[in-house]
């Protein structure tokens, strides 16, 4: 058995629910009060993979980056050495969606020369009456940057594991591709 380990940058504007999503997935806990992330928080999510005869596990090392501008000087360096990216927006707030491209550019700047991919996550889909960014827009954006798209409700725990499983699959596939390219 081998363990693959990936550094995942979780980024997006403040209050989109990045920390809630990560905590819900890693610790099965949901905090109803907003607790601003200062700098960054670090969590590990283990995803088991059934891959034919061998059993493998992917550890996602989640770097949950503070969305607030006041932390940008501190957090900029944390965006480096990324393997995968999770971009999160709030479906009720169009600004959080439109600013994802800026987040992506910032992450790419800190990871020049590396091929990066990941997932776009539309959070708070439980707020059905207040949806301002439809899934078609989210999916189109994700496609335009070569990412996968997921709609989740962290509050209800709906679909929350899916983007993490997808990241684990992407990373495992990359490992297999690397091994194959070496002629093994």
């Amino acid at each position, binding site marked *: *058995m*081998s*363990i*693959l*380990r*990936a*550094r995942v940058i979780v980024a997006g504007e403040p209050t989109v629910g990045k920390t809630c999503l990560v905590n819900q997935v890693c610790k099965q806990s949901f905090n109803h009060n907003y607790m601003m992330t200062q700098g960054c928080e670090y969590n590990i999510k283990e995803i088991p993979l059934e891959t034919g005869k061998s059993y493998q596990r992917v*550890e996602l*090392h989640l770097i949950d980056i503070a969305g607030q501008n006041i932390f940008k000087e501190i957090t900029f360096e944390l965006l480096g*050495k990324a*393997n995968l990216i999770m971009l999160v927006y709030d479906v009720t707030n169009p600004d959080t969606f439109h600013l994802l491209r800026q987040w992506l550019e910032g992450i790419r700047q800190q990871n020049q*020369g*590396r*091929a990066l991919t990941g997932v776009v996550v539309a959070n708070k889909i439980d707020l059905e009456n207040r949806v301002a960014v439809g899934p078609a827009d989210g999916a189109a954006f994700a496609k335009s940057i070569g990412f996968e798209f997921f709609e989740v409700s962290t509050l209800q725990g709906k679909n929350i594991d899916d983007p993490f499983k997808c990241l684990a699959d992407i*990373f495992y596939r*990359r*490992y297999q591709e*690397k*091994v194959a*390219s*070496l*002629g*093994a």
Partner: protein
Amino acid sequence: MEVKCATSFDERFDPNNVLNKDPNKFWITTGLYPQEILIDLGGTKPVNEVKFIVSGARKIVIEGCKTTNASEFKKVGESKDLANKPGQRQTDSVKLSEPAPYCLLKFVIVDGWEDFTSVHFIEFV
């Protein structure tokens, strides 16, 4: 000479492959940097330079230990940024700043251009 320890392990790719001249045998990291491989030189041997064949690596550091107890490692060499050659092997070397007899050497992959680095061959000159 043998590998005493490595920070990544996939049963298909034995870390000792790095000491084998067969280019099709290799050791591969399984994610995150830094990664390292600790090599026992099988006694005290003078080393001036470390030559290597890798892929996906960005920066290599060599640490040396003059005793067998693995407690006093010191950085003795460092590569510049290796050329980014996606899908190709990188052949390079690190000249030691302190050429001397060593018992143990660490080959440290400080950073990579790719998610995973393969190490095909390490030679001590």
